[in-house]
């Protein structure tokens, strides 16, 4: 399975944020999306998630040589600030999600099994989500996004505000999830990108480009990334 973007573009009035995005993502890999502030990472994610309409171009899956369009249930999108419906308990939120996604959740498990999987303590499972901590809300958001086993998992700066323990748990989780799907992970933290991701992709001047690591060591690779992002001269 591949996820392919072709000539995707998006402008806001005069500003051309995404110029000509073309890229092929391979199944089973985690892609680290790096870009400077305002480069359009979130815009790209929003276009892929169909939150905003793109101006041109297309994106689709290619399975066994056949193209197919992207449906809402194919995408999991985890935002940097976790948002969960405050008036539900963790258990109720999961039940609601499972209810309405009956068709797309294959071999559903008992709800507690999911909680165990995310290491959410039994005493927290029946609390209202408004009383969850930041890290726990983040776990819930992640959980809801992965239960349906989306083919494409988009993560917008997901680990930045988590404590070290939860961040490590999440990293492990992402690694364990990467088989069978495309994971795109945007971040400003270079070490995180190098540590977690199989490939580094830069969003620069409105286009996506892969950075070849070949046989450079980490320090050289970092230099290369910085140099590529700096090139345009707007320091």
């Amino acid at each position, binding site marked *: 399975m591949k996820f392919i973007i072709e000539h995707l573009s998006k402008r806001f009035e005069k500003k051309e944020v995404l110029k000509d995005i073309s890229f092929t993502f391979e199944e089973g890999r985690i892609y680290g999306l790096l870009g400077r502030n305002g480069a359009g990472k979130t815009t790209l994610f929003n276009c892929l998630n169909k939150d905003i309409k793109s101006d041109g171009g297309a994106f689709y899956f290619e399975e066994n040589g056949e193209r197919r369009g992207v449906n809402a249930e194919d995408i999991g999108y985890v*935002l940097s600030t976790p948002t969960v419906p405050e008036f539900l308990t963790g258990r*109720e939120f999961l039940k*609601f999600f499972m*209810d309405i*996604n009956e068709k797309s959740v294959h071999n559903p498990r008992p709800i507690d099994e999911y909680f165990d999987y995310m290491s959410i303590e039994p005493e927290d499972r029946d609390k209202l989500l408004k009383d969850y901590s930041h890290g726990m809300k983040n776990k819930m958001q992640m959980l809801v996004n992965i239960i*349906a086993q989306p083919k494409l998992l988009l993560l917008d700066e997901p680990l930045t505000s988590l404590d070290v323990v939860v961040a490590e748990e999440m990293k492990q989780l992402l690694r364990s999830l990467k088989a069978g799907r495309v994971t795109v992970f945007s971040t400003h933290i270079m070490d995180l990108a190098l540590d977690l991701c199989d490939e580094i992709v830069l969003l620069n001047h409105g286009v996506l480009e892969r950075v070849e690591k070949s046989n450079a060591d980490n320090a050289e690779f970092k230099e290369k990334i910085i140099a590529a992002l700096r090139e345009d001269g707007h320091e």
Partner: protein
Amino acid sequence: MNKILRLSFSLKNTYRVNSILYSLKQLPLIKRILPDMLYGVTGLKIFANIVSVFIEVFSVFAGKLLYFLTMVAGAAALYENAPKERVFLHILLFLTVIGSFMNTHIFNPTRDKYYAVILMRMDARGYTLVNYGYSVLKVIVGFLPFSLIFGSLNGVPLWFCFLIPFSVAGAKITAAAYTLWDYERRGNAYNENKLSKFVWSIAGILLAAAYGLPAAGLLLPDTASLIIMTAFIPAGIISAKKIIAFGSYSEINRELLSQMMTQIDTAKQAAKKSGERSISDDTAVTSGRKGFEYLNELFIKRHQKILWKAAKSVSYVCLFLVLGALLALYLAPQARGEVNELILNWLPYFVFIMYAINRGTGFTRALFMNCDHSLLTYSFYKQPKFVLKLFKIRLREIIKINAVPAAVIGAGLSLILFASGGTSNPLNYAVLFVSILSMSVFFSVHYLTIYYLLQPYNAGTEIKSATYQLVLSVTYLVCFLMMQLKMPILAFGICCIAFCILYSVIACVLVYRFAPRTFRLRA
């Protein structure tokens, strides 16, 4: 001083000009024509500057005109039996004292002050003095024409009409000097936007003295009013020295302005908190349903406080009023004819009442704050079939909630109509009841529809749609104007029912067509 004057004015003006441009950019149609870079376009800037000057001039006079028109001269005219001049001076004196400490102008923490003193590190003393001097000048200039007009109309001697503006300014300066002295003594910075209970109660007592004493026939003799008011002028001159000599402007400004900035941050938090507070903590609430019905039932049950409970208390109040009216009609048969006449012709009035008791805005607000705000970030939730399914469920719920008080009012009105002598055409009863119900359905549909079609909130729970606010204001205005309309039940009721049915059908069609695209978080 000159430089500070120039700088602080240009800063204030820039702030205002940009606010004007920003609000232009929010208007539904105009925003399309305006370029993205509007803050740099000279023509627009000149236009906004003209508007800004106009606002400034307007602000000098408009408030004072209203003040004299309503609170002083207007109120004084109500006391028909008292001598005009004495009442006028009596009220003016007490209000001047209240205004002197409620509205000092010296430490009114505003954003432009924050920018100047905290961010740009302007000299706090110079800045405060220059701005204070200007505001005192504005008081004098703004008061002068109206004290002359309204004063002489009320028989106040002309020489004193000239003195009134200076006396008001003197009182304000004296109060300001007192707050500075108080700061030196106790270290308490006086924030006129956050008054203590003590100050509020003094203001209340003085207000009662201003309007209550004349009603009781007790008035200050006019010589006393004249002497006290005149005495404010030398007091102001002496106090002005204190204000100029005061040394801790920097500290006091920092204290007040930092309070203000934390207020702005906490305002957002408070909105979020109040949204969360409306969620009942009762986890014993459960639901045996499935999917969206499950979500909806939990939402309704956990928001009892703002939905069903509110609707029920309104219903009880209405029931109580209806019973009261029936009792009154029974006890006072002579009123029956008049009441009958009222009921038969005042149905349009109830549009406004139904508007006022409708839970629609509260419902959509809670829906967004506590539910959609988060769920709209999940793509599964945005699938068209789910959006529409939930719309249907929610519409059913809000109609149910609003129907309870509507049924009480509708049935109550029919009963009152019957008890007050009835009507020759029995159809009136049915139309009365059905039209009240259909009004409640209309408001339920209306609020939910504009919420789904315009979805005005962004991820930060701020309202970002001027169109939405415009629609709300127009709704209010139309309902308000309905109060002026007098029409027989049959004519108005049938029009009203027809309109509500038509509107609901159109609204639902629009939602089904467009909501899957419009029901998104705003960028």
